[in-house]
């Protein structure tokens, strides 16, 4: 093992840029995943079969195929269809769309978990549909599923290095670029790996604490 601390010093600025890009992708991807997931979940409860069925099929398809291939699909095929996006935008959309199919399941479980009495109470108070959702059902459902949603944020963090393959210079991309420039591969990759643990482990501890609090 040849470990060189000065290499690490040298890599630090690039690492900083990469970390920033990773976090940006994570935040934007999370926003898309949370919002779109709710759309899928509500669409799957639609009374119209013509809405329910295609949404279920599409989300099942997206969830059962690899994110990496989806990223390639968006990156190479969208320009052929005349829609050219930056690598970062493509990556964020791909990440968000893929995980929205997971968050949709989480939302659905949360909505299913709201007791029937709550719905009946809303009907008894003759609340309009929109108020029933925004004031009665969703607040209870979201509270219940917050930790599960958080788990998917961590999962997205760990999948964010895939954006490297379409040319986004996030942490791993920076490490590889630095490695191919200087032929020092070990230190940057190890640093990136440790960075992931340093972010993911405290976050998962936090979520477990949250889960215990909400369970009460």
């Amino acid at each position, binding site marked *: 093992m040849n470990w060189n601390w000065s290499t690490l010093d040298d890599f630090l600025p690039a690492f900083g840029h990469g970390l920033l890009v990773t976090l940006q992708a994570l935040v934007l991807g999370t926003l898309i995943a949370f919002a779109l997931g709710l759309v899928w979940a509500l669409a799957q409860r639609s009374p119209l079969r013509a809405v329910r069925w295609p949404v279920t099929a599409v989300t099942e398809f997206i*969830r*059962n195929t*690899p994110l*990496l291939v989806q990223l390639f*699909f968006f990156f190479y095929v969208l320009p*052929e269809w005349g829609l050219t996006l930056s690598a970062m935008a493509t990556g964020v959309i791909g990440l968000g769309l893929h995980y929205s199919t997971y968050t949709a399941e989480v939302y659905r479980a949360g909505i299913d978990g709201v007791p029937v009495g709550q719905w009946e109470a809303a009907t008894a108070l003759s609340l309009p549909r929109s108020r029933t959702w925004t004031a009665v059902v969703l607040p209870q459902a979201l509270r219940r599923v917050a930790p599960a949603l958080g788990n998917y944020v961590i*999962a997205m963090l760990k999948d964010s290095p895939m954006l490297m393959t379409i040319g986004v210079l996030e942490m791993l991309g920076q490490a590889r670029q630095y490695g191919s420039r200087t032929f020092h591969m070990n230190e940057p*990759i190890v640093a990136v790996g440790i960075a992931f643990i340093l972010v993911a482990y405290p976050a998962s501890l936090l979520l477990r604490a949250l889960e215990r609090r909400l369970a009460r």
Partner: protein
Amino acid sequence: MSEISPGLWGILLHGVWVTVQLTVFSAALGAAVAFAVGLARTHRLRIVRIVSGAYFELFRGTSALVLMIWVFFVVPLTLGWQLVPMWAAVLTLGCTYGAYGSEVVRGAVAAVPQGQREAGVALGFTPAQRLRKIVLPQAWPEMVPPFNNLLIELLKGTALVSVLGVGDITFGAQLVRNATGRSAPVYSVVLVMYFVLAFLLTRAMRLVERRAKAGVGRGPSPEPAAAAQSGPDRRRDAAPSASAPGGAS
């Protein structure tokens, strides 16, 4: 679709074979790791629990792609020996998904009622016999559905090996894309291929689940009633499962 000539289809089909191999070997390694680490995490010795817990946190915390690149590019440079790309990939995938699986094993084993173990003690079973004849047969049916989810994740995870140059479906797709100069047909075909593989895996695991439940004298699961009331199948309900934080990637 007509752009893909028979030779190029050959590349893709060979890729399917490589992906299937990767999935099978990684799943075998992953299952071994999952049972070893999962059982170690319920061990009565504190030190064993700490070491196996550290393994779990380490592999769950890092990204599989980072780990794979490290094993593939760094280990040969620093240690001087090199793994065949295919086995480097199997090693990382098996260890990573084995860590997720260990949480499944731990949870299922912990869910076996304490009285069952005490009955084993009362009957004079050795600890190994208790594990093999009492605990695991009852825990196993509980493990199958979450293992199915992990298998699908593993199948999707195998796409990462194309970054290392292993000729799986995704790698074949890049070759075909370069050859035809068109992306939409080949990537659509490849996505469908993965979906079909995932579908077959799910079907196979349903069979395993039914047999496992029959083995402990339980019906084919009370799920159909619940599934009927909420429409599409619920096998992936993520929120109520006690799976590990971040265990999905």
